[in-house]
């Protein structure tokens, strides 16, 4: 049996549709664009947060009440019609701009982040992302997002110190907005639509970080993956964040050996028998990236070296595990099982503080494949009307 290689499919998400005439523009003339049910609650953040838990809308953390006024203000700073269908979620529910904005308001996300959130939702709803499995699984997996382009600074998306969590920035509200959309629209509610055994802190606040392009010796991730220059987001599924410490290595090959061996362990998702393949995302700190680039000419060379170390001997697995891997053709002629089918399936990007010393392992789930989308340029409705 041969190795199963990862090749993207040609499947795409459902085309957008409109519900009413747009002749009047986003302001809507006499049309009430907002079609969501209105619910009466007491006028306080405490009362609304409590109500949101009872209604199944919230995550238990404080939420901003999504009143008509707040939702309309958020919309007015963008040029999206609220009835625009962005994606159909796994249970065929419709993720419209209106639902996205309501959840973004609740999370306290800035209005300027709408196009980023929309691009993120478009990415995870692509069939190859396999959100259906990501949502339902007993695993702790959740979608993570890597942002490229000037929008990183405009929205204060962290890509240096503490980029995977802990930085004080409203980007955290963007991550949480996406998590609320996952809960309220996409159907990832623990104990109801997801069987996650342990869950993860990332299922609360999300994971959204930038690539430190200015410190990267390689082209930006979105450009390498999809030929997209400028603002773009790459969605990937991750079981959480895994730290790889290396205070001792010297030289590119030694660092990459340490990273490769560390991310490859028997219980890693990449060795699950449920699928024959998976990807793996790895963040490399700027100091390490610079050292690596001095010795290896291209990012493909880096992936190749790393991939050769991201493997374990088949004999490490107990017989029942080994039998399944052998049946799937995953034991190679060198007697090893590789984390991914090919070097290209290691998704590498540069991020992290200048203290170096660590790498960031982000194991994917099942056969969920990372997706990259461009981020549209928002233009406020008022500006359009003035033209």
């Amino acid at each position, binding site marked *: 049996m041969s190795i199963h290689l990862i090749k993207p499919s040609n499947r795409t998400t459902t085309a957008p549709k409109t519900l009413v005439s747009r002749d009047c523009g986003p302001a809507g003339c006499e049309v009430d664009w907002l079609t969501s049910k209105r619910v009466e609650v007491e006028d306080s953040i405490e009362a609304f947060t409590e109500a949101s838990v009872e209604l199944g809308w919230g995550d238990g953390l404080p939420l901003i009440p999504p009143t008509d006024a707040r939702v309309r203000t958020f919309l007015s700073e963008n040029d999206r019609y609220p009835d625009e269908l962005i994606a159909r979620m796994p249970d065929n529910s419709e993720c419209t701009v209106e639902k996205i904005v309501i959840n973004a308001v609740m999370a306290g996300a800035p209005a300027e982040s709408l196009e980023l959130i929309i691009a993120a939702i478009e990415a995870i709803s692509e069939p190859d992302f396999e959100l259906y499995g990501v949502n*339902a699984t007993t695993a702790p997996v959740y979608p993570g997002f890597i942002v490229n382009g000037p929008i990183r600074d405009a929205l204060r998306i962290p890509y240096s110190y503490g980029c995977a969590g802990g930085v004080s920035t409203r980007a955290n509200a963007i991550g949480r907005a996406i998590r609320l959309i996952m809960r309220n629209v996409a159907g990832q509610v623990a104990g109801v639509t997801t069987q996650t055994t342990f869950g993860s802190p990332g299922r609360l606040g999300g994971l959204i970080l930038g690539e430190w392009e200015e410190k990267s010796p390689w082209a930006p991730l979105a450009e390498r993956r999809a030929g997209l220059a400028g603002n773009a987001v790459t969605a990937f599924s991750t079981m959480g964040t895994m730290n790889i410490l290396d205070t001792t290595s010297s030289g590119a090959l030694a660092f990459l050996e340490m990273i490769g061996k560390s991310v490859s362990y028997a219980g890693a998702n990449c060795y699950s028998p449920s699928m024959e393949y998976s990807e793996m995302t790895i963040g490399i700190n700027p100091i390490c990236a610079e050292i690596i680039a001095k010795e290896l000419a291209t990012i493909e060379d880096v992936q190749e070296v790393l991939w050769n170390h991201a493997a374990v001997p088949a004999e490490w697995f107990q017989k029942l595990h080994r039998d399944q891997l052998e049946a799937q053709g995953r034991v190679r002629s060198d007697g090893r099982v590789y984390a991914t089918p090919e070097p290209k399936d290691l998704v590498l990007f540069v991020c992290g503080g200048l203290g170096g010393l660590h790498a960031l392992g982000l194991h994917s789930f099942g056969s969920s494949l990372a997706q990259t989308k461009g981020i549209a340029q928002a233009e406020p409705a008022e500006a359009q009307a003035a033209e």
Partner: protein
Amino acid sequence: MALIKVLDPTAKRMDDNASPGPDAGSLTGKRIGFRLDQIWRCWDWISENWADKFREAGAEVSFWRSTNRSGEEGEEQARSLDAWLKSVDIVISGLANCGSCTGWTIRDAVAAANTGVPTVAVATKNFEDFAHELAARGGRSGLRVHVLPYPLNELSREEVDPVAEAYFEGLLTVMGASLTEKEIAA
């Protein structure tokens, strides 16, 4: 305290087919399809056991195995499933024994039920409620679900075979199989 109106942030599909779909009826001459996966060996063993019983009752049996759902292989899986569903008269879809595998077991069972063939999803006890929840969210709240004990895959073949024997009659009931005297004798 003053009251305000807030907008509902949730979205769910609104349509539902609460019918369990047609009964399996007599099994003689029917083509019974087992939907398998590549993770639960206990389901391979149980489906083999049940397949033998169906053959003895005069039915034909075929198997379809779910693998990768993304990329080109995912596209091929979708085509393969569609073709297989057209080749069978009854579908038994399993095994709902984890989160994602319950998801895909139910998704494929809903696809089968939507073609109009008698369909039963098979779940282990721990994932029974989840299977019904996903069926409802898939637009088939009435989907038939046959429940096996849990845990199951952790058991040996010698322990699983008696489970297959003990739960076959229950399967026939959930399927709506109306056995002929010959089938009962078998």
